[in-house]
């Protein structure tokens, strides 16, 4: 997959959308939660990423709602987006497993 490795904000946005369609502010709060408050997306970064991910067809528009007179646009992961996220997660898992094994931190190997 040519997009790999993903930058952390991109990885977290795709992870947030893997749980189901979300609107912009929902993605921001979810990313903060997934990363335990370590990554706080700003609006500029979020919409630049969403714009790029839409162009790369990893994310697409799900639906639009008007809430309190304001437009809410929900985004969802595409099949390609899910594939890229799975590949990145597997890449990170293999790397993490290798690191853990070499550090002798894995259960039963100490």
């Amino acid at each position, binding site marked *: 997959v040519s997009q790999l490795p993903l930058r952390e904000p991109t990885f977290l946005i795709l992870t947030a959308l893997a749980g189901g369609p979300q609107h912009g*502010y929902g993605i*921001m709060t979810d990313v903060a939660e997934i990363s335990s408050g370590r990554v706080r997306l700003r*609006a*500029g970064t979020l*919409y*630049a990423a969403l*714009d790029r991910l*839409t162009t790369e*067809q990893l994310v697409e528009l799900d639906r639009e709602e008007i809430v309190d007179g304001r437009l809410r*646009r929900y985004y969802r992961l595409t099949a390609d987006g899910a594939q890229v996220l799975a590949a990145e997660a597997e890449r990170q898992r293999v790397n993490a497993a290798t690191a853990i094994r070499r550090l002798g931190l894995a259960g039963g190997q100490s």
Partner: protein
Amino acid sequence: MSGADELERNCRRLLAWYPAWHRQVHGEEMIGVLLAAAPDGQRRPGLVESLNIIWAAVLIRLRPRSAAEPAEGWRDALAVFSVVAPVALTCFVLVAYWTPRPTATASGIGILGLGLALPFVLLRLRRVAAYVSLLATALLVFICVYLTYTTGVGAEIFAFPLFAYAAETAALFGSPGPRRGLQILTWRAWTLTVVAAVAFAVAWLALRAVKIWYDTAHRPFGPVLEPRTLPLVAGAAAVTVLAVFVAGVAARSVLGRRVLLMFAVVMYASPINLLWPGYHSPVASAFLTYLPPLAAGAVALRAVSRSRRRAPDGSRPA
């Protein structure tokens, strides 16, 4: 004004850093996100938030076209040209042909004829404006042919108004017209248009004056730069730099470049006639004046017909 209203107004001001298409696509939802993420009582976006928006907006302006960015085909460029051309060329003529001279008056009055279509353009009446423009073009062709054969006036002096009429007519017939053009044009584009038209006109006046001085006063002995000519040359240079700067700003978008190209075709004849007047070699001058823009027109027609075939919604001009 309440704190929330003030915050919203400041957020909108901040989003002006983004290109218009991005604001159109994401503007309202970004406002919603910025307001939702702001702490209670906040009246303006924080420094980090503001810098983040500005940085993201600059990057979006620099990167290649996004999928969300609307396509800017030749039809849109023609629609913009159909509105901008009569306004810009009327401004240009009012300034550049202020001093009555025989040839200047001919093409000046000629180009002012475009003003006839202007009210219909501004009223968004595409078809009426197109037929008025076509009628004006036909009349001008008749006058051009009649005067060329009866008085011996060089056909090339009518080139500027003729190209302007023909381009306006083509733009009105070949595009969705002023309704679409006015939708696309922003106040900044209008300011650029008027500033560019006046700047080009002033530069043109100065260049003409220098040329007349060169041709009449010093021909037998070659050019001698007199002190009274220096401010004129400096003024022409300064205004030309301004005009080039304005053109550079307009050229940042695909649509802007296409509109500039159409203006270049319309204006092409003027410097050619200035540098190579028809009295040296009428036939060569007529060919040099008319052939390249006609070839450009043929290429443009082909591009428009291809753009029409590719229109995704299959829509036709109203």
